[in-house]
């Protein structure tokens, strides 16, 4: 029975090929658009998630601000308000996993005839832990290196490639601001951060060495920035509160005076970025779905025309024993088949276009099986939903009226 009906639906579709093809085109475009938009949207989400995971989790930074003495605000030209001891005190707080004071700036590196300008970060070993950054070649430096200001460096992948080329950088000596530094390790690759900056274009050296030899700060022991990692995402707000009160107490700020530091929740910023892409992705999908809706309306339109055109045929079928549900399923099946075929074609074209976008623009796309599944469910749904009314109309025809129809 079903096979006979499928055959008939196929015949009916073939009877007016151009019309069937045009009706299908609506579905092809609709499904294609949904597939492409979902691939792009999910790709963007994936890229953001990927970037966030390279940043390290549950991070916030404390930046030194201006302090006010007798109503005179020093501004950023004054010395930093934070110091290494502040960091050490923070590390004692509950719920704090890592504390890494940092001092960073852009400097020129020289090795042999090569030179390269990069971001130099002076910090402590806790920095790498907080950012979950591993060393793929060589080793890191320890707290003793920080205490004794040794001239050792860990370099990022981009620096290794640009300064050392094919050579193994570990054990080589390069110069930063005329000072020789021994390269002891190469960092694993992290790719771009959320702002699009290459995170691998960096050199990490002990904080004290950086302050003395590279940046030459007059305020030894002071830092402009401290990175803090909390144990858990839930613990973040509490840890940030505790750090605030600790710093106010240590800096002897009286009630009513403003903080002489700022805090920035990096994880929250990343989350909001992820939220933005998620929203964008949903929006893209929703807009694409509208074309699917239009495709469905196209099917309904053509099915209505078809029912009218085939009124006499319906009458004949009824006269020889077709029940209402036979007629209903015949027209419904036709609608679903058009929808389904359009969906299949749309899926293929959508995938091809998405892959093309990836190939030619390098944009990250994600093609998930669930997207394909959704597309098919939608096709069946659209076919049934928009096919129902015309099919119902056909089934409700009066046999004798339908037979009389010219």
């Amino acid at each position: 029975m079903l096979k006979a009906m499928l055959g008939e639906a196929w015949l009916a579709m073939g009877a007016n090929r151009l019309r069937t093809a045009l009706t299908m085109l609506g579905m092809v475009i609709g499904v294609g658009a949904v597939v492409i938009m979902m691939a792009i949207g999910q790709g963007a989400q994936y890229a953001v998630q990927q970037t966030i995971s390279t940043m390290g989790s549950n991070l916030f930074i404390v930046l030194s601000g201006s302090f006010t003495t007798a109503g005179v605000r020093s501004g950023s030209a004054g010395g930093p308000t934070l110091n290494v001891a502040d960091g050490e005190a923070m590390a004692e707080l509950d719920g704090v996993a890592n504390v890494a004071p940092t001092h960073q700036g852009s400097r020129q590196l020289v090795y042999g005839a090569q030179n390269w300008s990069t971001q130099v970060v002076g910090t402590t070993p806790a920095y790498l832990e907080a950012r979950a950054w591993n060393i793929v070649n060589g080793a890191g430096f320890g707290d003793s290196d920080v205490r004794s200001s040794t001239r050792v460096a860990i370099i990022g992948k981009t620096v290794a490639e640009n300064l050392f080329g094919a050579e193994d950088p570990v054990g080589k000596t390069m110069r930063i601001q005329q000072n020789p530094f021994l390269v002891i390790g190469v960092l694993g690759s992290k790719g771009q951060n959320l702002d699009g900056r290459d995170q691998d274009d960096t050199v990490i050296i002990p904080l004290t060495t950086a302050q003395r030899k590279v940046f030459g700060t007059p305020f030894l022991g002071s830092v402009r920035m401290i990175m803090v990692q909390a144990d858990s995402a839930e613990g973040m707000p509490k840890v940030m509160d505790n750090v605030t009160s600790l710093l106010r107490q240590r800096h002897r700020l009286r009630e009513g005076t403003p903080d002489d530091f700022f805090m920035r929740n990096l994880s929250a910023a990343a989350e909001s970025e992820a939220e933005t892409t998620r929203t964008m992705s949903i929006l893209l999908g929703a807009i694409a779905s509208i074309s699917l809706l239009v495709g469905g309306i196209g099917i309904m339109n053509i099915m209505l025309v078809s029912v009218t055109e085939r009124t006499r045929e319906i009458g004949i079928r009824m006269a020889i024993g077709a029940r209402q549900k036979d007629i209903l399923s015949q027209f419904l099946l036709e609608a679903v088949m058009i929808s389904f075929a359009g969906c299949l074609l749309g899926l293929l074209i959508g995938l091809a276009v998405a892959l093309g976008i990836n190939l030619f623009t390098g944009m990250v796309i994600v093609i998930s099986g669930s997207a394909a599944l959704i597309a098919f469910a939608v096709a069946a749904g659209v076919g049934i939903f928009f096919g129902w009314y015309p099919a119902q109309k056909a089934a409700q025809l009066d046999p004798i009226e339908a037979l009389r129809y010219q």
Partner: protein
Amino acid sequence: MTESVIRVVGLGKSYATAAGLFPALKGVDLDIQPGEYIAIMGPSGSGKSTFMNLLGCLDTPTMGDYFLAGNNVAHMDKDALAILRNRTLGFVFQGFNLLPRMSLQDNVALPLVYAGVDKETRQARARELLGKVGLGQYAESLPSRISGGQQQRVAIARALVNSPRLILADEPTGNLDSHTSEEIMRLFGELNAEGITIVLVTHEPDIAAHAKRQVKFLDGQIISDHLTEHAPA
């Protein structure tokens, strides 16, 4: 006495028109026994088609009762009527009413699709019946490829496919020339000889002469009902 194939009691049908209800059939009584061969005659507009459509379960009466093989169908729902049309009777139209996009074999087999018969059996049965009406070699052709008389024979094969005991035909030769009409009437004669009850409408006395009994309609009523005087040889 055997059970009547058809028994109608006070059967009537009024059409709703712009000018109000129009009574096309005004209370008809008729009893048809198995194996009968009846010709219905009467002037245009006398209600013959209206009557046939009621007998064929294509339409429902506005008054009276209709017993088909003992069951009152006057108040059956649409699906029950569809099943009766499919299994119990075969209807032959003046305009043949074959589906133009389907092969003759598929046309003949179509009632079996709605009866839920499997494909093998359907095809075998359709071929058998096409053979019976002398069109076995056209099984794969489309209706547009054959003549009107041949199309009507295919339509009769379709009416017979579910082995009904009753064939209803509304002016089956109305679109055919006299020679072809004779062929069709010979086919009906053969079917009747096999025991199938036949009721047909015609305007032509020569055609009606093939039947064993003649019923005349006028203004929605039966005005005469008698056996054919000179039964055909």
